[in-house]
């Protein structure tokens, strides 16, 4: 399994309000062409899994997870 750490960019389908920022600890919310971008520094794998779980629990559609700069 690829270890996710450092600057990461998570793309979600649709527009998620800025109010949700506090739920995605350490991530910023921005928008790009109809998608919501969560970006920030990931501490480790569990941090990522925590975020993915929130995305799952809200039934948001995950489009991609990428290390930033690549």
């Amino acid at each position, binding site marked *: 399994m690829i270890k996710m750490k450092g600057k990461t960019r998570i793309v979600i389908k*649709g*527009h*998620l*309000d800025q*109010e*949700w920022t*506090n*739920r995605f600890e350490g991530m910023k919310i921005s928008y790009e062409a*109809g998608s919501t971008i969560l970006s920030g520094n990931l501490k480790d794998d569990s941090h990522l899994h925590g975020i993915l779980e929130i995305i*799952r*629990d*809200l*039934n*948001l559609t995950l489009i991609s997870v990428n290390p930033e700069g690549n």
Partner: protein
Amino acid sequence: MLLTKLHIPQAGNNVVHRSELFEKLKSGLSRKLILVSAPAGYGKTTLLSDWINQNKISAAWLSLDNGDNDPAVFLSYVISGIQGIQADFGQSALRLLNSPNSPSVESIASLLINDLLIIDKNLLLVLDDFHLIRSNEISKLVIYFLEHIPGNIHFVILTRSDPALSLSRLRSQHQLVEIRLSDLSFSANDIFVLFNKKLKLVLSIDDVCSLETKTEGWIAGLQLAALSMQGREDISKFVRDLKGDNRYIMDYLMEEVLKIQTDEIKEFLLQTSILEQMSAPLCNTVLNRSDSQLILETLERDNMFVIPLDNERNWYRYHHLFADLLRQRLILQSDLQLERLHNKACDWYDENSLPELAIYHALETRNFEQAIRILSRIVERMWEVGQHSAILRYGNLLPDEVIKGNQEFALYYSWILITAGQVAESEKYLDYAQKAIDSVIRGEGSAKKAIPDNKFLFGKLATTLAYMKLFSAPPETIIKYSEIAIDNLSGANPLWTGWAWYFIGNAELVRGGVHKGLDAFNRALEYSRKTDNIYLIATITSAIVSRRCALGQYRDAFALCTDTLSLMSRRGFSGIAKVEWTFTGLFSMMSVIQCFWTNYDEALENAKTAYKLCENARDIRYKIMALLAYSYALHAVEDKEGAFDKIGELEDVLKRYKIAPFLASTYIGWKIYLLIEKQEINKAADFAEEVGLEQHLKLSFETLYSYIHFARLLLQQNEYIRAEELMSEIYVIAKKANGIERLIDLKLAYALMYISKNEHEKALSEYIEALDMAADENLIIQFLFDLDQMGVLLNDVYRMHAEGKTSISDSFMQKFRQAVGSKIRQSKGSPDLGLSTREIETLKFIAEDLSNQEIADRLFVSINTVKTHLKNIFMKLGVDSRTKAVKKAKLLSLV
């Protein structure tokens, strides 16, 4: 225990019955697992509860939460759930579960499987919100269940993400029915039924189709939409406007729903969203109201995502997703308000004896002091019922300083850490206790001063410190700590006093005081039997038994084993001993003793039990003991390959772990013996060199067994001088400790040496001395090992005994002769009874039931010759009829 977790949630009035999915679920009644896997809000729970209700299927339902990640908690709920259907289910598993030494979950699972076999109708075991389970141990447990459940039991797992349960294997075995997102999403038809038939809203076909596209059939979204439509004039416009801006649909709908609520209801919804479950009194306290019951019932009636958790309408919860969305809005309002709400909820739960939920709210606002205050009141109980993972989880959540400041919690947390092998980690939490006890030892303070008002707590802390230092501190320290513990516990707490005595026993043994050690163990045993803690009882019994064996007190040792086992069954623990790994040692030693006594059948059976148990053993010593016992028993019944295989298994274990000298020496000695027996002298010598027997003689009582066999190896290599030197050193040590078993081994080695030196008389005298020593404890097996060489002594032994020249009892001599006789027959395959070839041929014909005349014809001899053969056969086999001759011949594998 929260009984609300076992309640099957009711589907509500406006449920859309989904007959096509019912069909699919029905096919699950011939499978092991029904998996309903889809995101939140797709009606998983509703579907299942509706299906169960409509079809009156027996079901044990468990709504999981984060606290269920402790296997002990999880299993308690599972058992309680099934008890709702079969009242006597899982009684013994529950007793085993409620012990402070987290028994292996496999042991409990195998007991539960036995109980499940009794249930004869279809039974569903529903695990709702399984995605909250993160514990590998629980996943392993569910896998074990899935592998072993009978055909009428079916697991139903409702989850937001696929569980790690070997799904592809179940799929390929046709043991899995899956209901997924695409099955659950509402079709246009379902939407039409919900809005137009159930909710009596009037939607056009176009609106229905548009809703289907915009919500993608997501039921929670559709229901929020329905709520937002209440009282609207232009529903079509609402549908058109929906999701026009690509915004997260739930944010949009939630706002719409809240917009049309009164301020009062809006506030109620937001502020109660912090509650995992709600009752009217709880809501009244948290919100300073008095009409919460009315509001809750109104919310339920209005389909505001409120689910009753019992039939009496005492407890409710919100749909998880709905609560999540509400909470998100509440958090944005004010931190102060949030804290106030959590504090009130915490206090209410605490006052109403629901400590776990109180702790949950305290931790939500990082009120660690409050959390540990409540925890310290329940931690002993949690520890007693084996909720170790839960305690570890709390320990992880709390800051170190907070834990150090609460010795009650620190005590149990440390104990669990030590048991889990994290001794270093536990040290920091016991630092305070350590300082206190050291000042008591130095005479600088009393226990009362150190830990005010709580002598018992101080006693328990001292016990835990002794436990922590058992393997690192000098024995004197362990004894001192334990004595302080016993003094402070003042006999009031048998469990802790038992442990303290047990630690003293261990320390005495390290100091070399075998008898003092045994005395301490016996005190420990006395206390342990006043408790229901089977782990403590088994541990202490094993310790005593192994010491008694080392002292040659086999009868006492064996009697203690049977006594403990019968005590267990009197207490209602029968059956548990045979599944719980802590009894591995007991069964291993019983097997070895039975081998000594040549009770091979029982020995083999007990060795097999020990071997089965050791699979789950957490303590490596037990694994080694079981493998050695099994090897020994297999050898005793002439399965020499099997005996060697078990040594191979043992070596696999040894690659990964280090073991105590006594066990290591037993393994080394036994392997050398087996190699000598196989005539693989070079291999034996290489092995002896590899384990370092040759280079550094580390003779002690603990290691004697390996050196005795090393001496025998030297004899095989004709190194008489070195062998004799070694044997005389062994003798001094064995004699000093009065180790009967070792002395017998040694005498027999001497006998072998004299035989090969042709000094028959000396050999005979060693042999008879050995027999003399063995007679009291009825030890025979050691004499059966080198019969091919020792055989030359036997006639003289028997003669001397007959002439009254030995002091060996007749009864022992008789047993000895029998054992030798059957061993000779066994090991030679066909025993040398002096039967001629013709006589054996005759025997074979008798076995085929031929008449004397027929035999005569076959052998081309006269009938008189046949009769002579028969007479000789009868005499040599010691029988008096044809049937008995055949029987005996078969026994001896002659025919």
